[in-house]
């Protein structure tokens, strides 16, 4: 009762990274609230889910296994979640801010009349004093998210309604195994008690899912390219630099929109969040929405021909020059001087 529940996204018997990241965060929230961490797996052929999630500190895994529950469709998954939440009364429920979580979350929250905050970038526990009502609430979930195109950050709370629900994008939270031998238990749900025939109104007739091509989230070195690169062709020098340094190439939204880079390379508020050892920003001005996704990099080098580019404020090294001149020099030095 009153635990934290994480909805697991499962594709081809593998739990998605975003769900493991949420489990990591939820485990630490559960520790500070001194409650249990629960996870729910809804789909088919879920025998291997337990082994994947217990190391993240899951105490109870609810499993709703039925061939009709995979692939994901909105209403049956909603029905399982709503009934389970009514039974378990979780205080917090988390989901990925993915095309599944953002389809499911609002439906569940509407059915339970519980608040939902989309795309949180931080989750914390804290108190709230409602001066007007003269009430103090303890241990609420602070749901922190950018608003107004990233220009402000808002802290949202749900004082009265439970569960407190939030979605978080992939890559925003860190994924960390708690204990490879952590012991949790599996509770199988009797699916016919949770869904009705009338939930199966939408049928998936075709699916083409791709594995993410870029490995930005796990890269130690990232070369970020912006609109200032000028062309897709000019991005080639970034791939070359990434190649010699053993890194990955990311991009700003302006570069993605211009077709210089692929969508899954986008870094920032509406892309992935990265925290590499080294981030080299090439021809990126450094608007708030981009910085939000890379400011935690250990070392930031900005290569920009504008002395006043905002990226320079958060950079450790500011190289005030043209990328076309600087990048080849870096490649040349490294080729000559590394073993």
């Amino acid at each position: 009762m009153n635990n934290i529940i994480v909805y697991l996204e499962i594709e081809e018997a593998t739990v998605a990274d975003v769900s493991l990241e949420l489990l990591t965060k939820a485990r630490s929230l559960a520790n500070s609230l001194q409650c249990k961490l629960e996870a729910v797996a809804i789909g088919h052929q879920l025998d291997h889910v337990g082994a994947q999630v217990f190391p993240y500190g899951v105490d109870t895994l609810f499993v709703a296994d039925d061939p009709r529950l995979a692939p994901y469709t909105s209403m049956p998954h909603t029905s399982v979640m709503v009934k389970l939440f009514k039974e378990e009364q979780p205080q917090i429920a988390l989901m990925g801010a993915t095309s599944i979580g953002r389809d499911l979350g609002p439906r569940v929250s509407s059915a339970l009349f519980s608040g939902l905050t989309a795309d949180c970038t931080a989750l914390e526990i804290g108190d709230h004093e409602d001066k007007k009502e003269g009430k103090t609430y303890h241990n609420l979930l602070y749901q922190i998210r950018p608003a107004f195109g990233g220009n402000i950050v808002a802290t949202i709370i749900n004082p009265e309604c439970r569960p407190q629900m939030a979605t978080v994008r992939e890559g925003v939270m860190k994924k960390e195994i708690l204990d490879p031998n952590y012991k949790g238990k599996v509770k199988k749900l009797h699916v016919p008690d949770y869904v009705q025939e009338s939930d199966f109104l939408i049928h998936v007739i075709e699916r083409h899912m791709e594995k993410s091509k870029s490995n930005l989230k796990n890269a130690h070195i990232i070369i970020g390219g912006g609109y200032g690169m000028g062309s897709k062709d000019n991005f080639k020098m970034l791939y070359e630099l990434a190649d010699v340094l053993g890194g990955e190439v990311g991009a700003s939204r302006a570069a993605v929109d211009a077709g210089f880079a692929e969508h899954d390379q986008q870094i920032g508020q509406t892309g992935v969040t990265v925290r590499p050892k080294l981030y080299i920003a090439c021809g990126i001005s450094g608007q708030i929405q981009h910085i939000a996704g890379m400011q935690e990099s250990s070392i930031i080098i900005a290569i920009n021909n504008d002395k006043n580019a905002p990226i320079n404020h958060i950079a450790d090294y500011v190289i005030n020059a043209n990328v076309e001149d600087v990048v080849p020099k870096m490649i040349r030095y490294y080729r000559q001087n590394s073993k």
Partner: protein
Amino acid sequence: MSLKIVVLAKQVPDTRNVGKDAMKADGTVNRAALAAIYNPEDLNALEQALRLKDRFPGSTVTIITMGPGRAAEIIRESLYRGADDGFLLTDRAFAGSDTLATSYALACAIRNLPHVDVILCGRQAIDGDTAQVGPQVAEKLGLPQITYAEEIVDVTNDTITVKRRLERGLETVQGKFPLLITVNGTAPACRPRHAKLVMKYHHAKTITEKQESNDDYMFMFSARPYLNITEWSVNDIKTDANWLGLKGSPTKVKAIENVVFQAKESKQLVGNDTEIDELMKELIANHTIG
């Protein structure tokens, strides 16, 4: 076959063009400094509605928007592009609504219509970026939903086939009317205004707008009923006040902060050979690279 189509469209501040003057000194947003626009993905939804209407003559496209009086502009804009009529849901009782209270009010307005086959929404509104209202309206009405639609592939009798664009791929799904669909920005852009429709609907007004303007076109509104944009207040639709506005909103804003990034002490380089060599050497020496 003809369809009764509803499009939910919202007027939003243009957050994509937030300039420095849009932020007040205390870190809050100066909404007045931002232009009010038609939420971009709602235009994609409108286009899908108009395509269904083209394909099934006799179909109608009805716009519902909830907002202040000036949101009537959204309905006029929709009429210029080919919608048939629209309702402006406006009342102080709706103020302070979060997505749940908004979807409750919109669902009540939809229930107030005699018959609806398909409801089209934008995927998300650019002021909140939540993408919650569509699915919540569907849940409140007990309808199935298809989110992230990019293309309506086929419609036969009571079955609709839709292609969805997800972050990692494509999915084609089939459902039956009635249902709710949210439309992605990757779907085709909305057709432009039609000059003849602009002329036809130029004077379309809500009752409040008519009262405010003292032009002498008043006779027109009874002669041309299509120029009346219906305003609905809480009293015109069946609602429970507990689910509206601030009271009906489980989420509260606790705090709002301006985004400031900690400026770092940085080394300034001009990028000559020696500097770059030194920099690379340092990065190799401290094991950042290599």
